[in-house]
């Protein structure tokens, strides 16, 4: 198990822990009971946040082919809710979750489910002894590049990730990805506040960069751009955090509470106005390239 990777191109474990190790007790105040810290998916506007988070997990599990999956990898597993949902739907499945947050890894370990293996490890260091037949990654891809990289290096880093997925997926394996993307903005518009206080050492992808990075490895089967779903999710979180303000301040102090308040509000604006989008992609592993004709 390693915290620092020589090949992982994105944010360091220290940077990830800066954000996610504010503590489970703090996040429990304002996330849904399943502690899912990424955009939900609404089919009906009146659905509550917990239902919309389950919709999101089911959407990704369906795209990863959960019915036939026996070994599932969750890259950026958070506090483990997706893996728990996978096991509700497919009890004989084995789930491996990767996270760089010690708090998240510790929490998933306390679930005590022998079918779940939570590892404090980057995908770049993960070497499974058998292939997976389903991979899901939600809200981790945002941390796979850094602002100071050139665009070519950034895409090469993404491609290393998809190469890792390709190598470790069975021939008929499927993958589902969810990430925030730049929409009507570019990396030069990335807020200094986000870069310094919220997501240090991280950069977002453009959809076109993802399409470039999967070339020859995966085909994009389905794509949803759901920025309004993220704005709705953030509004739920913001309302809840405000209601639990005193408890939140007792846990993390007033200054950090203000940072989170501002971060949620800025994210709502970004998704509402289309500066950022929330992309969900279903990907199918491609076989090795086969020439259409052979020169004689």
């Amino acid at each position, binding site marked *: 198990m390693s915290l620092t990777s020589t090949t992982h191109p994105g944010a360091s474990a220290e940077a990830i822990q800066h954000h996610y190790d504010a503590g489970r007790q703090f996040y429990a105040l304002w996330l849904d009971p399943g502690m899912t810290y990424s955009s939900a998916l609404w089919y009906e506007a009146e659905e509550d946040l917990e239902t919309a988070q389950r919709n999101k997990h089911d959407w990704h599990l369906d795209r990863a082919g959960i019915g036939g999956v026996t070994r599932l990898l969750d890259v950026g597993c958070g506090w483990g809710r997706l893996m728990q949902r996978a096991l509700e739907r497919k009890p004989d499945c084995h789930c491996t979750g990767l996270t760089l947050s010690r708090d998240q890894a510790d929490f998933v370990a306390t679930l005590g489910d022998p079918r779940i293996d939570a590892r404090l490890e980057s995908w770049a260091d993960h070497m499974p002894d058998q292939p997976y037949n389903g991979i899901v990654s939600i809200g981790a891809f945002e941390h796979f590049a850094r602002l100071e990289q050139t665009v070519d290096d950034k895409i090469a880093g993404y491609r290393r990730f998809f190469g890792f997925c390709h190598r470790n997926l069975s021939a008929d394996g499927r993958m589902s990805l969810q990430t925030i993307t730049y929409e009507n903005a570019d990396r030069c518009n990335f*807020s200094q*506040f986000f870069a310094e206080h919220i997501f240090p050492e991280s950069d977002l992808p453009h959809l076109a960069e993802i399409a470039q990075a999967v070339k020859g490895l995966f085909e994009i089967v389905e794509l949803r751009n759901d920025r309004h779903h993220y*704005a709705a999710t953030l*509004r739920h979180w*913001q*309302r809840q955090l405000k209601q639990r303000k005193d408890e939140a301040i007792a846990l993390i102090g007033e200054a950090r509470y203000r940072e989170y*308040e*501002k971060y*949620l*509000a*800025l994210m*709502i*604006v970004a998704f*509402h*106005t289309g500066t950022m989008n929330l992309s969900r992609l279903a990907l199918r592993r491609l076989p090795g390239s086969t020439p259409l004709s052979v020169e004689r």
Partner: protein
Amino acid sequence: MSNTSVLEHDTAPGEEERIVQWLREYIGKVLEVPIDRIDADASFQHLGLDSSAAVGMTGDLGDWLGREIDAAAAYDYPTIQALARALSAS
């Protein structure tokens, strides 16, 4: 004056003006400029508010009015007058 604005004004007499006044004082303080130089019909962006200041303003205005205001309200209604009118009508 259109029929719509007459209706809105009738719904909350005086509130639109109170919100306009609050916003002008708030922005004057944030930007350190005299209130009489703040044009209620200029966009927040033109006045010099960045996105952090805009969401801070919306949050503080919500606290002052004692109700929830959407974080993106200053983007849907991008001037003092437009925001005040929308809030007093809702």
